[in-house]
C-alpha cells in the first residue's frame, strides 16, 4: 500500500524562506522512481519548493507528504528515520569544514551506527571511487575545488542509499567531468528505476533531457509543466526564451 503512494505530494502549499524567496499555492506530485526538475530563475521559488518537498522547511498553509508522511507531524525518532530515506544536496556543498572528506562521507553512517568501522570504511571508499574523489579522502573541504566538493556532497547524500534524492541547483559548481559523473548517475538510476530524483536548475543544461518531467517556476508559482521535449512548446514568454526552438 505504502509503495504505491507518491514520493512527494504538495497540496496548495505556501511557504517562504527568511531570505524572501517564496512559493504560493503550489501543488505537485512526484511519483516513485520519477525524476523531476524544478526550473526557474533566482527567486522564482524553485528552491523553496524543493526544500519544502524535502521536509526541511515549515509551510504557512497547505499539506506536504514526503514518502507518504507529513515531515512536520512526526515524532523525533520518526523524523530521523524519514531523513535516512531522503538524500539532500544543497546548492553549496555544505561539507563539515573541520572534518576530512572521508569523515564527512562517513558521518551519516557513523552517527546512525550503520555498520562497524570496517564496513563503513568500505562503503565510504566505494562511494568516493564512484564519484571520482577517492584521491581527496584525507583532504579538508577548504582544500577542495568547488566541483570536487560538490561530488563529495553527492557521495555523502547517497550514503543511506535513499529512496529519494533532492539536488538543489544540479550543475552549480560542477565542471565538465562532474556533469559527466552526474549524467552517468542519472542514467544508472533511470535504468534501475528505483530512485526518485527531484532536482532544481536555474538555467537549461544537458541533464534536463534525462528528466521525466520539468516544472517551470516564476514568482512562487508553477507556470509550465511537461516532458523535456514538450516544454519548447510552452506559450509563456519566459519559458519560450529559455526552451523555445
Amino acid at each position, binding site marked *: 500500500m505504502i509503495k504505491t503512494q507518491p514520493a512527494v505530494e504538495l497540496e496548495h502549499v505556501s511557504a517562504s524562506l527568511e531570505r524572501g524567496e517564496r512559493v504560493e499555492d503550489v501543488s505537485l506530485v512526484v511519483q516513485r522512481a520519477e525524476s523531476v526538475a524544478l526550473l526557474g530563475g533566482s527567486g522564482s521559488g524553485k528552491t523553496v519548493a524543493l526544500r519544502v518537498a524535502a521536509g526541511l522547511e515549515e509551510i504557512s498553509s497547505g499539506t506536504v507528504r514526503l514518502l507518504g508522511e507529513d515531515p512536520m507531524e512526526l515524532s523525533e525518532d520518526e523524523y*530521523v528515520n524519514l531523513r535516512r530515506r531522503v538524500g539532500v544536496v544543497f546548492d553549496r556543498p555544505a561539507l563539515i569544514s573541520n572534518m576530512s572528506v572521508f569523515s564527512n562521507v562517513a558521518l551519516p553512517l557513523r552517527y546512525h551506527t550503520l555498520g562497524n568501522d570496517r564496513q563503513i570504511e568500505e562503503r565510504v571508499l566505494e562511494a568516493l571511487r564512484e564519484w571520482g574523489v577517492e584521491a581527496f579522502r584525507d583532504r579538508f573541504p577548504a582544500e577542495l575545488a568547488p566541483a570536487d566538493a560538490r561530488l563529495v556532497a553527492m557521495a555523502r547524500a547517497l550514503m543511506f542509499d535513499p529512496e529519494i534524492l533532492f539536488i538543489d541547483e544540479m550543475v552549480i559548481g560542477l565542471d565538465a567531468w562532474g556533469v559527466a559523473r552526474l549524467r552517468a548517475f542519472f542514467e544508472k538510476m533511470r535504468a534501475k528505476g528505483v530512485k526518485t530524483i527531484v532536482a532544481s536548475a536555474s538555467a537549461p543544461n544537458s541533464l534536463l533531457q534525462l528528466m521525466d518531467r520539468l516544472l517551470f517556476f516564476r514568482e512562487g508559482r508553477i507556470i509550465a509543466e511537461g516532458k523535456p521535449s514538450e516544454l519548447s512548446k510552452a506559450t509563456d514568454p519566459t519559458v519560450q526564451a529559455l526552451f523555445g526552438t
Partner: protein
Amino acid sequence: MVGWIGRKTAKGVAYASDVLYLAYLSFKELFAGSPRGRGEALRVITRQVIFTGVDALPAVSLIALLVGFIVIIQAGTTLPRVGAGPLLAQIVVLTIVRELGPLITAFIVVWRSGTAISIELGNMRVGHELAALQAMGISLTRFIVMPRMVGAIVATLCLTVYFDFVAVVGGFLAAKIQLTIPLAVYFGDIADSLSLADLLITVIKAGLFGFTIAIICSHHGLLVEKSVTEVPQQTTRAMLNTVTICLMLDIVVTAGFYL
C-alpha cells in the same frame, strides 16, 4: 523609562529562557538512552577537551604563575607589616582557590574556546553545514551543543584545579626570592587553611563556568542566520554575556557558601 525597563526585562527573560532551553535539550541528549550518535559525540567531546584543556595549558600556566606571584608577593610583604604574617596561607586560599582560580580560568576559556565555539557554529550556519546535518537526521544538540558542553565542563574543571595548583605552589616558589617564609611552613599553613568547602566551591564554580561558556557561546553561534558579518557580532555578544553571567554566578555561589 518604564517602557524601556519593561522591554529590557522582557528581552532578558526571553534570552534566559532560550539559553536554558538549549541547556535542557543538551542535558536531555546527554542522558538519552539511544546509542545514536554516541561515538561521534564522543569524538567531538575529545576534540573539545584537547582544544579547551590541553592546548590551553601553556597560557594557563603562565597566567597562573603570574597571578600567584602577584598575590603572594603582595600579601607576603604587606601582611607582616600589620602583624598578620601568619594569615598569608588563608589569604592565598581565599583569593586564589575560592575566587581568582575559577574566574581567571573561566575568562581564559571564554577568550580561547568560547569565541571559537561561537565563530565555528556561526560559520557552520552560514555555510549551510548545520542545515546539511539536519537533512541527514543528525541532531544539532546531540552532535554539536552537548559534546561542546561536556568538553568545556571537563576541561574547565581540570584547568581550574591546575590553575590553583600552579598559582599556589609556583607563585610561592617565584615569590620566594622576596619572602623569608620556609617552604614547609607555607605548605603546612596552606593545607591547614584549605577546607573541603574551598575545594568544593572551586569545583562547583569551574563546572558552572564551563557549562555557562559552552551553552551561551553555542546559543550565540546558532543565532547567526545568513551573513558572515553576524558572526563577529554574535561572538562579541557571547563573550560579554558569558563573562557577565559567570561573575553573577560567582557571586551567587560565594554567597551561598560563605554568607
